[in-house]
């Protein structure tokens, strides 16, 4: 799917923590097939991957950089837990679910304190962004959209997220995430917005973007994965085709949502289970990362490859039909006649 006239391809990278390695495999397949997106969007780890693709622009280059980064991540865990706030955070998480946090003065104080620091240091991720998606490249890169969830405080966000995830339709859905066009933001907050998209409650501090606190976009519209699968901004930006990478088994992303009625969406879904527990989100281990990269590659080959093959056959058929029409017209108008 090269950029034909009238075709605009968008790449949507959903969130899923360490499972983001799966997207490195998808990129490898796209690079092999020279499938170049015109724009890209992401949530959480998907936003970090998307930022690098945006900055590198060329799909082959982006694939090389991202695959290298993920192989490095498997050697050096990017999640550095801070010792001091660890106990405080653990207590806060417990308090969150007992609904005490937001009701007591102490609880609110703890929540605010954690919001400002986060349990995990941002330095490794910031370094990755600075090295591979510097603001200078982002500004001239592929259009990039990230999904952000307006925070009401770590505790409240976490409670709402987990309760909605567990109770599903028994609970009211979380409010919808917002989508920020990175190139429209000021240079100073571009990286913050990307980091905000990956800021899980308690693990990372909330980011201040244009006067509002934002967290992991994956928490918005949980029931239908509105925030975790940021396809909407790419459709609104004029994409005609989307490749959507989903990092969970049985994702509730709905391609038949009316907002996608004019868009051809190729979902890359895992054929085999991609994860067996929540802990996989933080499993930056060599074996897991290698497995996910391969899984992403194979699934992209199957999902994208089958769709493109079908499209290619149809295009060839249409092209041949046009030739037949022309030949018939030529036959009709060639003035062939043999007199008696």
């Amino acid at each position, binding site marked *: 799917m090269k950029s034909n006239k009238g075709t605009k391809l968008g790449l949507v990278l959903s969130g899923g923590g360490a499972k983001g390695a799966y997207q490195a495999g998808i990129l490898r397949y796209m690079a092999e097939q020279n499938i170049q997106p015109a724009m890209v969007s992401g949530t959480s780890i998907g936003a970090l991957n998307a930022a690098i693709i945006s900055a590198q622009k060329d799909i082959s280059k982006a694939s090389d950089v991202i695959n290298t980064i993920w192989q490095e991540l498997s050697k050096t865990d990017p999640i550095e837990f801070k010792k001091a706030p660890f106990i405080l955070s653990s207590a806060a998480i417990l308090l969150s679910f007992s609904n005490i946090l937001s009701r007591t003065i102490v609880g609110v104080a703890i929540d605010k304190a954690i919001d400002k620091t986060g349990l995990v240091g941002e330095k490794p991720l910031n370094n990755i962004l600075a090295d591979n998606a510097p603001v200078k490249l982002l500004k001239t890169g592929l259009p990039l959209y990230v999904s952000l969830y307006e925070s009401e405080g770590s505790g409240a966000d976490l409670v709402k997220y987990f309760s909605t995830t567990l109770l*599903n339709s028994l609970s009211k859905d979380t409010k919808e995430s917002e989508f920020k066009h990175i190139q429209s933001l000021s240079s100073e907050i571009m990286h913050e917005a990307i980091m905000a998209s990956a800021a899980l409650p308690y693990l990372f501090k909330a980011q201040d973007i244009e006067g509002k606190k934002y967290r992991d976009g994956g928490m918005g519209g949980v029931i239908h994965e509105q925030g975790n699968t940021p396809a909407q901004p790419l459709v609104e930006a004029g994409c005609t085709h989307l490749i959507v990478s989903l990092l969970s088994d049985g994702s509730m992303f709905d391609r038949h949502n009316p907002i996608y009625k004019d868009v051809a969406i190729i979902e890359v879904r895992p054929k085999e289970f991609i994860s067996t527990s929540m802990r996989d989100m933080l499993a930056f281990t060599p074996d897991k990362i290698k497995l996910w990269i391969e899984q992403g590659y194979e699934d992209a080959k199957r999902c994208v490859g089958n769709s493109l093959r079908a499209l290619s056959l149809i295009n060839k058929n249409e092209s041949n039909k046009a030739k037949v029409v022309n030949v018939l017209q030529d*036959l*009709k108008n060639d003035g062939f006649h043999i007199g008696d």
Partner: protein
Amino acid sequence: MASTDNVLKVFACEVGLSKKTTQAHPHLKDKMVVDLINGLEVVDDHIKVSESRHKPLARLIDGVTGKGKQRQNLINKNLAEGLKTASIWLQKHESDFIQVNLALGTIGNKLIETRAGVMKVDSKVGSLKDYVLDFEKVIKEKQKKLGDYIQCVDLRTKADAQMGREIDFWEAGNLNHLPLPLRVFTVLDNLRNGSFALFMQNKATSTERSDYMEHLRSKIRLAVANDLDEKPDDMLFKQEWFSLYDLSHKLDPIEKESLIYLSSWANRREKTAVFSVHSMLEEPNDRLPQRHNMLRWMDRSIEEQMGVVNQ
């Protein structure tokens, strides 16, 4: 032709409709195809998760939270949309088949038309071939006739030229060293073996032959009369004719020998005129008659020497 036009009209109409539809929704086709092909992957994913949640507690939770229903809805929606797409796709395929069949029909009609044309051409080529062969035959005949005619004209010209040349040679006095009968013999012998004879033998018609012989006779009579300084009709029994016999005794031996050889073919009974020449050269005193009708002798000599070519 009319049926071909109709087929083309219907085909063009269908193609036009098809183009209109696709132009109005340029990505509709891609979406339909991707929804069908990729939608099956979505269904597979949800079925995979559904099958993994077979334990009672998981089923209870999925039932209570509505997740199971949500999942099933997505499966149903993807299957329904996929089937819808498959149905449209099948219709499109049918439409394509119709178009292909129409195209085949059109091409078939054109093929029939072309084959009929080729057969017509073949038939025309057959007739033309016969005509060309006949024409070739006629041309060859004409060519042959023309060749013959040219050859005839050529030979006639040469014959005329030779006759003129021989008589001129004689009248110029170049044969004066010979007795008169030998002059006649020599001229006739030259004509007998030259273009004159060729023309007379091969190309001249009987009328021409008769005319040429008459002409030759006149020329020789005139030449003889000139040599005798007489009118042709007055030289029946001229003494000079006989006195000139004496010249034969004075001939160069080689020339004499040659003339003897040239006249040796005549026998005494049938070719008497030529034989008399032969005898005059070999035995002049014994064989020659004392009085001789010159005109008769000349006619006889012409007849004997030119008889071969006058047949």
